[in-house]
């Protein structure tokens, strides 16, 4: 696959104080560091090790990941929405790369 691409599913709007469900998925092989190539050499570990979801600058949920998280890591969690704003999602790769995306939500 090309550059890891995040996908995020957030409702477009919520009632004030509503607890919503957020789903995220990112394309990434999550190379565990346990596998060997055809020549028998260990393939070096390269995983996404940290995921963070922020809302208007405050952390809502985060996750430290180990190599036992499946390829194309999926994360589903909740968030309580009291005001309109922007969710920011960040994935940090072992190689230092950071993948980000944002979603806005309105409150009625």
């Amino acid at each position: 696959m090309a550059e890891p691409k995040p996908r995020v599913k957030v409702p477009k709007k919520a009632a004030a104080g509503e607890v919503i469900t957020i789903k995220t998925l990112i394309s990434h092989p999550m190379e565990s560091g346990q596998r060997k190539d055809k020549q028998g050499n260990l393939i070096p570990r390269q995983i996404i090790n940290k995921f963070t979801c922020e809302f208007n600058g405050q952390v809502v949920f985060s996750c430290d990941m180990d190599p036992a998280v499946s390829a194309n890591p999926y994360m589903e969690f909740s968030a309580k929405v009291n005001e309109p704003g922007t969710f920011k999602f960040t994935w940090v790769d072992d190689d230092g790369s950071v993948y980000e995306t944002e979603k806005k939500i309105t409150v009625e």
Partner: protein
Amino acid sequence: MANRTKRIATMFAAMMVGTSASLAGGPVDDKLVIDGELEINTRVPAPEGHPFDELISGWHYRTPETRDLEADSFQNPGMLYVERGEEIWNTVDGAAGKSCASCHEDAETFLKGLGASYPKWNEEAGKPFNIELQINQCREQNMQAEPYKFDADDQKALTTYIKHQSLGMPMHVDLSEGEMQDWWEKGKELYYTRTGQLNLACATCHENYNGNYIRADHLSQGNVNGFPTYRLKQSAMVSLHNRFRGCIRDTRAAFPPAFSDDLMALEVYVTWRGTGLDIETPAVRQ
């Protein structure tokens, strides 16, 4: 020990006389509705001359968790490849400075149902073409780009994207074009020919023993309406010819190259065997 032998014998007898429906490895009674909106026809009456009465998608042979994964287009990891495929469709490549979209401007209309009608007779090549071969012909002739190597990531992603545009549309192969009927016959012969050290034909597992266990796994009818398929084992898309080669390898036979005449004939025949089943690409399997 004697008791154990007897129990094994009893179990053995039960398995031999059991019909597929009565065994735990058989298809489950469930409906595939994607995102609660699009119902997929996963059980359809077989076409005339088919050895089965009913055709059943491999989806019915999977656990609830795997079935749920396919029913949620957000959670389905295969959708990552659909999105990547759409990017490739719109990306210029090759000396002619074209993308797929340069010629096929209205992708939505052009691609709707297209993937469900392959493999198709290609007059110029004098053989059936699947989506992968069609992409490569376009790349070489119209884009002046290098053809994709078998199972290149971009080939799998673009094929997945194209097939996905026929999601929920019935698979149908037109045997009246060119020499398709001859290729169908050749494919049928291969389907029933035992091969390899284990002396297995496609039909051994997928016609005679579908609905039974193979080790801890369930044998399906071997339908191809979900390819390319996201396999949990590889955590990636698996192409149809990769799956063909894997099956043949497991019989301990030498396996033919992807897109060879043998495997193209097999694709024509096996696709026909699933006539009427809706396209599920990207299906999710174990």
